[in-house]
């Protein structure tokens, strides 16, 4: 799974994508989808989904160790 994390973090397209992403998440669902229930969807759909969840956990681990970007910078 570590092989799956080579994403150019600070490239221009990514910044554009994240801005769009921030805009769309302002629309919240009336139903609480449950954080664990969202994350499990990154595991239940086979190999491709496990890669996605692997990335989530890898990034969390890096942030925990002080290598990742500060999350608040995206807000």
């Amino acid at each position: 799974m570590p092989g799956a994390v080579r994403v150019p973090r600070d490239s221009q397209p990514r910044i554009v994508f994240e801005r769009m992403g921030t805009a769309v998440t302002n629309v919240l669902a009336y139903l609480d989808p449950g954080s664990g229930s969202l994350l499990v969807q990154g595991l239940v759909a086979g190999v491709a989904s496990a890669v996605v969840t692997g990335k989530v956990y890898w990034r969390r681990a890096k942030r925990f160790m002080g290598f990742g970007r500060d999350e608040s910078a995206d807000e």
Partner: protein
Amino acid sequence: MSAPDGGSFRDPDGRIFQIGGEIVRALSEAGASDWSAFEESGLLARLVESGDVVETTTASAAELEAVRSADPGGGWVTALRHERLPFVSYPYEWTFSMLKDAALLQLRVTRQALAAGLALKDATPYNVQWRGAHPVFIDVGSFERARPGEPWLGYRQFCMLFLYPLLLESYRGIPFQPWLRGSLEGIHPAEARSLLRGRDTFRGGVFKHVALHAKLERSHADGAKDVRKELRDAGFAKELIEANLKGLQKLVAGLEPDGGPTEWSDYMATCSYSDEDTRAKEEFVRAAVLRRPRSLVWDLGANDGRYSRIAAEGSEYTIALDVDHGVVDPMYRALAQEGAGTILPLVGDIADPSPGLGWRGRERLPLAQRGEPDLVLALALVHHLMISRTIPQRELVDWLAELGGELVVEFPDRDDVMVKRMLARKREGSHPDYTRSAFEQSLRARFEIVSSVELPSGTRALYHASPLP
């Protein structure tokens, strides 16, 4: 009546009203925008055409005005009019195969929405109703524009209200109806995990959708992390939702109800009717049904639905209710296969009927408030209620009269084989008032007896009665 429907408040972007006998859905600005996307995608037309989604048209200006005056602060900008389905029922009244077919409908509709660039806000069986034995998705307000990188928001609800109840009954033989009646939210992942343990972990769907789901829910219970954003940033794409939906479709399609025959499932084969009795009974019921056009018939204690089918010959819609899901489920499957659209099979206990549930007890209505029958069939029923369930005779007749319709009721005497068997389980001399003459007396207090017949075997009588004004 134009007050908002008590069960439609959860999504703030839409609300159901009854305006002049029509079912009208009011939409907020955001709701109207999603509705436009749904309509323009062409998916609505396809789903209505296939019968999967309730017929929907734009309401008149007068109807929108009526909604606004009924709910001035609602901020409603658009209104839709829906086809009125004959009878509202709830998942805790459905059989295993009904919940399974409703789940497959939910998954099918969700997949089609995904392919059309749309998403569904939720995944609840309360968005499914029936045209006879055909499930129909009723909540067009569920459709919204898909947001890139977003997981399926209804997944948790799908598990809690569709998947876990089905797994529980299929793998453990535990009927889901009492669980769903006990909690409108359904069965939580942690609860499902407590129920499906040990070797169940290795049965289809349990490891992923129950064990892992419960584990991750527990570890994210504080809700501190923005998991949506994390998943989006990690490249979550709609293909993953599609793969999950496809897997769930396969899983659900393969689930079967657990268990062998139940108390009544071989009743027709072992019951005490001779062929002559059956013929005479059918003739009597048919004559009563066809006496005048019927809009809604309730067949209480319907068993395999033999008399519901006779009722359907002369009524627009028939509810076939029985306490035993073991007989209602095969009835449903037979009706679904035949394509029957006017008989709705339901599981329910007359001695403990569905109450008002949810917020203010008005979200889900009691059975008796969901439509007044103009004819009630109570065949091979009263002895069970009076002897096994000890319902007092007079109260039973009062309740039948309060339903408001005509009545066809069967009374088996004390020397009937079934009654003898029931009385044998009781203390000697119990139920001394269980006699045909006492029953007739109670019946005459509330009804006028239109006709009656004694079945050829001489131990059962049938009455067609009309309620006294």
